[in-house]
Each structure stands twice: as C-alpha cells, then as structure tokens.
C-alpha cells in the first residue's frame, strides 16, 4: 500500500449528506414515537411524579393567614391578627400538628377558643401571600382579599398546608424507627432467601444436567409450578401447615410461622423456578471439553466441581441471585399474608397508602425500595453482557455418565423439593375443598361460593381473565412492535437507545412502586388521561408495563436471530416494510410471540402488587380477592380463589402448548 502524505483528505466543507426519507422511514418514525410515548406515559412520567411527591412536604404556614373578628353587630371590625400570633398566645396547635400531608386541613376556629357558631359575630380571613389557600366548605379560596363569613360558615373554614420541595419526608422516615427498621428487615429476608434459593436451585439444576437421574422432564415441570400461582398462595399454605391451627405447628419448636420464618420459606417457594431456570441454562451450556480435560488431568470429583462446574455457571448463579433478591425485596403478597408484625418495605407502602392515606410517605418508601432493585438490576445487566461473551464460544455439550450413588442422591433431592412444592399446592387444594381444616374434613364446595364473601366474588375472577387476555393481546402487540423498532430500524439511533432504556426499566421497578406512581399520575384531575383511572384500561396498561422487560427481551432475542438483510432485500424490491413485517417477521417470530403472550397472561393472573392500588369496585381482580379474603379471615375461600388462578394458568399453558403445536405445524412448515 502506498498512500502518500499528499493523499487527499475528506473534504469537510459544511453540509453533511442526509438521506432523503422514504415513506417507510416516516411510518417507522411515527410508530416509534407512538410506542415511545406509551412508555413515557406508562412509566417515565408516573415515576417522575412519584419522585417529586416523595420530595414534597406539606406544612401549615400560620404566618400566611390573617383574621379579623367583628363585634356582636357584625359590622365593627377588631384589629387584624395573624394566625401565628394567635397560636403563640394560645398554643392551640403544636409544632408536630403543623406538619401535614397533601390532604391536610386545619380548622380556623381552633384559633378562637370562645367561638360559637350561633353567635352573630362575623369573621374575616385573608392570606398574606397569593398562594395561601383555605377551604370554606367545599370552595377553595386563595389570595390576599378579605373574605367575610358569618359564624355558621366560619365553622367550616379550614386552612390548607403550603407545599415545598425538600428532603423533609426522608428525614421523617429515617427518624421513625418503626419505618426505617423495614429496610433492615427487607434486606435481611431477601439475603437469606437468596442464599437458600440459589443453593437449592443449583443443586437441582446440577442434578438435572450432570447426573443420569430418572424423570428429569417431570421434575422440570413440577419446578415451574410456583410461577403459576400468586405469591400469596404459599403464604396461605404455610398458615394452614404451620399456623396457629397448623398440623405441623410443633415442628417449629415454639417459633411462629408468622414472620421471618414464613417469609423465607414462602420466598424460596415462589422464587425457586426463576433461579432454577437461569442456573439450568447456565449449566446446560457447559463445555464437555473442560470436563474431559479435568478427567485427563486426574482431577478429583470435588476439584472438577469447584474448578469447572461452578466457574462455568458463575454468571448464571450471580444473575439468578440478583433476580431472587429483587423478587423477594419487592414482593408484597407473601409478607402481607405471613409476615405478621414483621415489617417489610413493600408492605409499608401498602400500609402508608391504603391504611394511613399518607401518599407522600408511601412515595418515600417507594423511592427507598427502588434503590436495591435498581442496583441489583444494574449489576445483573453487566453480568449478562459477560455471560453472552461466554456463550458465543463454540462449546461441545456435556453428556453425563451414569453413576449410581450420585444419581440416587440427585433423584432423592429432586423428590424432596418436588414434595415441598406439591405439598404446598396440595395443602391449598385440600383447604379449599374441606369444611374446616383440620377439624372437619368433610368435602364441600362452599369455599368456592365467592359471591357470598367480600373480595369481589366470581366477578373478580371474570375480571382477572379479562385482564389477562387483554394484557396478553395488547402486550404482545406493543412489545413486539417496540422490539422490532429497536432492532430492525436503522437511523434514529438516539431514539432507539432511549426506547431500549425505557423498555429495560420496568424490570427494576417494583410493582408497588409502579402502582403508587400510577395513582399520583393518573388520579390527577389535571391529567387528560384521568378518565382511565379506575377502569380496566389502567389495569391493562399497568400490567403490560410491569412485565414489559422480560417480554421485550424475548422479542429482541427472536428478532436478532433473523437475517439482518431481510429489510434491505425488501427495500431493494420496493416493498414497504410492513409487508415484510406481516409476511415474514411475524410468522417467523410466532413462537416467541406466543411465549410473550402466555408469559403476560400468567403474570396478569397472579400479580397483586401493582394492581392492588388501581382496581375499583367494577374491576376487582381474583388475585386481589385472595388478598382481601385472607385479610378478612376467609382463608379457605382465599385458598380456593388462589387455586382457581392456578387452574386457569394450567389451562392457559395447555392451550398455549396446543396452539403452539397446531399453529406452528401450519405456519412453520419450513422449520
């Protein structure tokens, strides 16, 4: 090569070339804007509003109000006095009482101890600032104009707090030991559950990939069962097994199942499938050549295990650990049922919002709960990137050799865990079918008479199915179209990475946080979308958003496997991209789309955390009914409703398998 120094340099005069946009480009840009807007409205904006709420403090500013009182004639006015001057003199409102919430109200009559609503005395009130607000009955008054009231009306005048931005709420939070304690509790529970779950999951995955134990397929099926039930259900099962009337109560040697013990056992139950599947994948890609090398070096079994097996799966293990940690720390259903007095962050949000109507404090707990979830998520993303690099090496799959002793141990362990899972489900099933466990075991269907109970009845079950179907339909549509935009369009690089970022975010946002953020955002009369508050629509949007990330990644993986030149071929043949999309992209990705749909369906059936803030009397849900019936002490009906969810999900899985087989046989003949 001989490029001289005089070689011409790129003529950089001014104008950069820009490709003329085609109709396709404009349609794609429009679509991307629509779906991007969806994510902003359904995720970005609500979270932002919530963050700002957590920083908003409300406090009565007494210096901002002035009064004047007349004599008996109602026309001769006395001197003007400020509310804080009156308070200094009388001491009627303490400093603590001045701290308020967005809903705070302070009666004006408090400052007039000798007030009588039948007297002819008139009262005047005005603000000293334009923002000072008070209510006279239902009407909101603001500003520095004097307003006159007779004593009958003045009785109904209340002052409104002034809002300001600051870290006051966080200070209050951390100085309230009962609240701050939850951080410790939540982290502790999550950590213990993670260690236990990962150990069990690893042992199981090891047995399934490295031994020749029988019935592997069956165990694999049993291990995915917990995904099909709400996390409330293991709580209910534990109540029946180890609760006050529990048959195995004695096993706990005096400890109560209500609290940490129950939380850990239940968490292991519902997080096990997630950890198991991740570690199983990590172990199945192991390279047989490493094992051959270890054998030829005469490494002992234990050395092979510690130097080959564990390091090979370490990214999978770490990834699974983060998933479990996040699931436990953000879960609400289980600690609500079995947690007893043991306070956890996710339950605190519920208590603050539903119990005490303290939305600001709910927002504070939410922000605190976001921290570990986002941290876990960020670390996990980095791990995943490195695992991919590991995967791309061409590996020879490992085939285990029979080893009677080892195989027996693995089989025994898998049986034990399966017994645990099936036992919990069976317990709920029995409880749902008998009159009064464990004293009266006559069979009955009365526990399924949901309409006789609070919680929403069979209508709630119907709503849940409607929600799950709509979520599956609408969700697969939005998610797949969104993933297509991210993966298969060129240009708009900034828009695409922003979009991808938004799509990855829901993974790190706990359901409770999302639900609360929705209250703040949608339950605001100033929001044009306010009308969907309390409808099925908001439940669908919330659920799709809540489970967006996994679905997005599934779609992305499927799209990445398609030849990147399909789009180029289509445009060289002058075909619009949507023709390619519907004739090639969608049919080829159909298996992935069906997987997304069933994933969304199952999760919409079982989810409690986000929707518990958003349902209305018309849109009660089965999973929420489980929670509410359990709360009301109707534990057997709660178990029955939980089982209904389980049956529905099993049925949905079967239908999915049938459709997948039937439809794919027809549309995927080419495979």
């Amino acid at each position, binding site marked *: 090569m001989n490029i001289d120094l005089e070689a011409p340099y790129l003529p950089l005069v001014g104008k950069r070339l820009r490709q003329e946009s085609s109709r396709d480009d404009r349609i794609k840009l429009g679509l991307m804007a629509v779906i991007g807007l969806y994510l902003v409205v359904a995720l970005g904006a609500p979270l932002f509003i919530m963050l700002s709420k957590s920083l908003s403090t409300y406090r009565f500013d007494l210096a901002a109000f002035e009064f004047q009182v007349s004599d008996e004639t109602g026309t001769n006015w006395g001197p003007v006095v400020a509310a804080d001057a009156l308070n200094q003199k009388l001491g009627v409102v303490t400093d603590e009482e001045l701290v308020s919430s967005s809903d705070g109200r302070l009666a004006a009559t408090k400052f007039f101890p000798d007030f009588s609503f039948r007297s002819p005395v008139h009262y005047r009130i005005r603000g000293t600032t334009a923002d000072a607000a008070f209510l006279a009955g239902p009407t909101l008054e603001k500003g520095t104009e004097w307003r006159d009231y007779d004593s009958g009306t003045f009785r109904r005048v209340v002052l409104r707090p002034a809002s300001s931005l600051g870290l006051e709420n966080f200070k209050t939070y951390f100085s309230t030991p009962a609240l701050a304690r939850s951080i410790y509790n939540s982290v502790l529970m999550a950590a213990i559950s993670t260690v236990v779950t990962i150990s069990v999951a690893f042992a199981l995955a090891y047995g399934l990939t490295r031994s020749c134990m029988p019935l592997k397929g069956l165990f694999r099926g049993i291990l995915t069962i917990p995904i099909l039930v709400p996390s409330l259900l293991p709580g209910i099962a534990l109540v029946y097994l180890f609760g006050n009337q529990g048959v195995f109560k004695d096993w706990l040697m005096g400890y109560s199942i209500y609290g940490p013990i129950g939380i850990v056992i239940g968490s292991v139950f519902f997080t096990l499938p997630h950890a198991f599947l991740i570690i199983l994948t990590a172990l199945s890609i192991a390279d047989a050549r490493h094992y051959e090398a270890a054998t030829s070096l005469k490494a002992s079994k234990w050395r092979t295990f510690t130097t080959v097996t564990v390091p090979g799966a370490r990214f999978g293990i770490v990834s699974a650990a983060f998933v479990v940690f996040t699931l436990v720390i953000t879960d609400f259903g289980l600690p609500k049922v079995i947690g007893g007095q043991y306070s956890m962050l996710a339950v605190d949000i519920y208590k603050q919002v539903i119990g005490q109507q303290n939305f600001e404090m709910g927002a504070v707990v939410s922000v605190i709960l976001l921290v570990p979830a986002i941290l876990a998520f960020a670390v996990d993303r980095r791990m995943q990137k490195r695992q991919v690099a590991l995967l791309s090496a061409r590996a020879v799959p490992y085939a285990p050799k029979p080893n009677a002793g080892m195989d027996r141990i693995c089989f025994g362990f898998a049986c034990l865990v399966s017994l645990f899972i099936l036992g919990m489900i069976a317990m709920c099933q029995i409880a749902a079918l008998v009159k009064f466990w464990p004293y009266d075991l006559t069979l009955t269907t009365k526990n399924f008479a949901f309409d006789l109970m609070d919680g929403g009845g069979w209508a709630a079950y119907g709503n849940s199915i409607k929600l799950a179907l709509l979520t599956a339909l609408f969700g697969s549509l939005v998610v797949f179209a969104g993933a297509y935009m991210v993966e298969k369009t060129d240009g708009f690089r900034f828009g695409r990475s922003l979009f991808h970022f938004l799509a990855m975010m829901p993974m790190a946002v706990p359901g409770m946080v999302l639900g609360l953020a929705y209250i703040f955002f949608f339950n605001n009369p100033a929001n044009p979308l306010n009308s969907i508050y309390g409808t099925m629509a908001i439940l669908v949007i919330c659920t799709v958003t809540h489970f967006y990330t996994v679905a997005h990644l599934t779609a992305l993986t499927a799209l990445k496997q398609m030849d990147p030149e399909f789009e180029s071929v*289509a445009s060289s043949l002058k075909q619009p991209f949507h023709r390619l999309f519907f004739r090639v992209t969608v049919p*080829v990705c159909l298996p992935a789309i069906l997987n997304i749909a069933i994933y969304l369906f199952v999760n919409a059936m079982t989810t409690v955390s986000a929707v518990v803030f958003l349902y209305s009397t018309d849109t009660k849900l089965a999973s929420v009914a489980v929670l509410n019936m359990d709360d009301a002490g109707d534990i057997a009906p709660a178990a029955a409703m939980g089982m209904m969810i389980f049956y529905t999900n099993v049925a949905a899985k079967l239908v999915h398998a049938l459709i997948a087989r039937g439809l794919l046989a027809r549309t995927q003949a080419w495979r």
Partner: protein
Amino acid sequence: MRHAMSIEPTPVSNARGAEEAHTPSPYLEITDLWKSYGDFVALRDISLTIAKGEFICFLGPSGCGKTTLLRAIAGLDLQTHGTILQGNRNISTLPASRRDYGIVFQSYALFPNLTIEQNIAFGLENTGRPKPEIASRVAELLAMVGLSAQGKKYPAQLSGGQQQRIALARAIAISPGLLLLDEPLSALDAKVRVHLRHEIKALQRKLGVTTIMVTHDQEEALAMADRIVVMNHGVIEQVGSPTEIYRHPRTLFVADFIGETNQFPGKVLPDGQIEIGHSAFCCATEGFAADDIVTAVVRPVDIIPHGADAHAVNAVDRPATPQNLIDAEVREMEFLGMFWRTRLTAPRLGERSLVADFSVNAVRRLSIETGAVIQVEIPRERLLLFPRGA
C-alpha cells in the same frame, strides 16, 4: 496518490481510451465518494464510471471496503461525501427503496417461511400486476435458473447453490437496471462455485443487466468480470480488464494480489538496466531515474526455462537473443497437475530463491529435475518495476 509506473504505460492508456470510446453513455458514475465511520475512513476518494451492460468486479482483501461501496450504491449505508449518478439520475441521497437495483447478499437472505415461488414473487406482488402474470413470470424465472421443479419447496430444503440461484432470481424478478452481488459464491464449495460462475455470467449476458459483484477471490474476478476494480484500504488501486490488470498491474499491491509474484529489491542503473543482487538485468526503466530504489517483480509463469544451453535450444522458438539469462539450481519441484512449480536458487539473484512454473512439456523436454542446474530467462518485458518507499 502516486501510482507505480508499469513498464509499458502507453498500451494501457491506449486500450482504455479505445474502450471508453466505443462504450456508449456511462450508466453509473461515482464521483469523489468518501465514507467514514467516526475517525476510520472506510472509503477514500472513490471515483468510478461503469458503462451499461458491464460486468464489474470489486476485488480486494477482506475489510478493504468493497461491501461498504456496494451498500453506498444501494443506498443502504449513506456515504459521507460524494455523488452517485445512475442513468443520469442523481441518486446520491435517495433511500434504497427509490433506487433501481436488485441485490444478492452473501447470506442470500431468503425468507425462510415462504416457498421458493413466494420468495421470487415477493417483489412482483403489490405492484398492480395481475396474479396470472406474476405466476408466469415466476415460472419463467425458475426456468431461467434451472429450478422449475423446486417451486413449492422452502429455502431450507434446498442446497446452498440452489438457494443462491433463488436469491438471484428474486433479485432480477423486478428487472432492475443494476444487479448487485455481495460475495454471492463465497459460501459454496469449490465445485459448485466454478459451475455457478458460468451460470451467473451467462445469465448476465443474456439479460444485459449492468452488474457489480463483490469478491475477494481473484480467480473469480478474472474469470467473470469485464472490468475489475481492485481495492485496498478503502482506495481504488486500479481499474481495468482482467488481462490488463494481470499484465500491467499499476501497483505492487495489484501485482501481488492478482496472480503470484517473485519480488526482488533492486536499484535502477543508467542505460535501461537494474541491479538485483550484484548483477545487472535488462529492463524497461522509463519513468525511473538512475539510483531509484525499486522492487522488481516477475511472475512464476513468465520465467522461461532453457535447459543447459539456452542459445542452442531456443534459437528456434525465439528470434531475439535471450537476455537476462541466469544459471539456477532446481531445489524443489512440486507437481500441480497442469504444471510444475519449482523453487530455484541463482547466485546472480543473491539470497532469495525464485519460484518458477514450468509446463509439463518443458520439464520433460529439458529434463528438469531436483538438483539440476539449468538456465532460465527472465524476459525483459515481463520484469516489472515498482518504486519502493524510503
């Protein structure tokens, strides 16, 4: 950029001039085209004119920018700078869908869920053509690529070579003015490759479609192209017909990339000679000054064997007295089917050995064998000089 001078510069430019004179209007004109990825310049100052109906090969080592140039022509990756005219229409910034070309990718990018027929029909549908017309066009195309019986199958059921032909049929279905092929044969095994070379070339002749094919295989380019564009590191090294490129490489890179070379460091002497090792050789030294440092190149096939006594034997074959005769000892011989490849050492050439290809006939006639000392001629006009950087 400064080009190395070939030893016979005049015939080259004459041939080119003549060619351009009788080819009509240029069909594709690329002017001053650049493409950079951040700081990395993938294409540098590319200018190229292609006539209607020509078969052009972009040839160069992997990573030299061939695909980038092809994609710029297709509108799939916009160039950073430069204009492209196709049939006098400025297409520089048009989106791919508004340009006029068909393309075949290395991966073929056949739609896996559509049958062969549906794949070929993909570009024909949606254009207002009646169904029967589309069906007959598809049948015609299938016959053209010799796969009439396979229409109902799916791509995965066909062999690589068959898939390649389907991709070609799909690309030409819309009768594009320009056909772009990106390494269309590189995924196939050698036998199918040679066979398909001929098929593609025959099809191109029949349709008369202007074609650009990207390849890194010089043999493929020499066999198929009307003109070859040799590229290296994002620049065009030389444009010319296969024989021109082979006979008169304008740079050392081209000489080395196309065909094989023996290279010797040398120095230009006065009166039409150069010094290699410690001896002088006759050579065309136009364009060089005395004492210029050069690389002298001779191809193995150009070396003429003369047995023990050159003057006696070759007086019949060659009228002129052989120049540049050297004594060489045969060190190794390798039979390659069509010819013998030999490695020679010659004291006059210094340390370096000389690779020479001798015909089977010559080896027999001159009793060339390992260990024999023979005379070989490095023909004056086949000894090429290229300037060597300081």
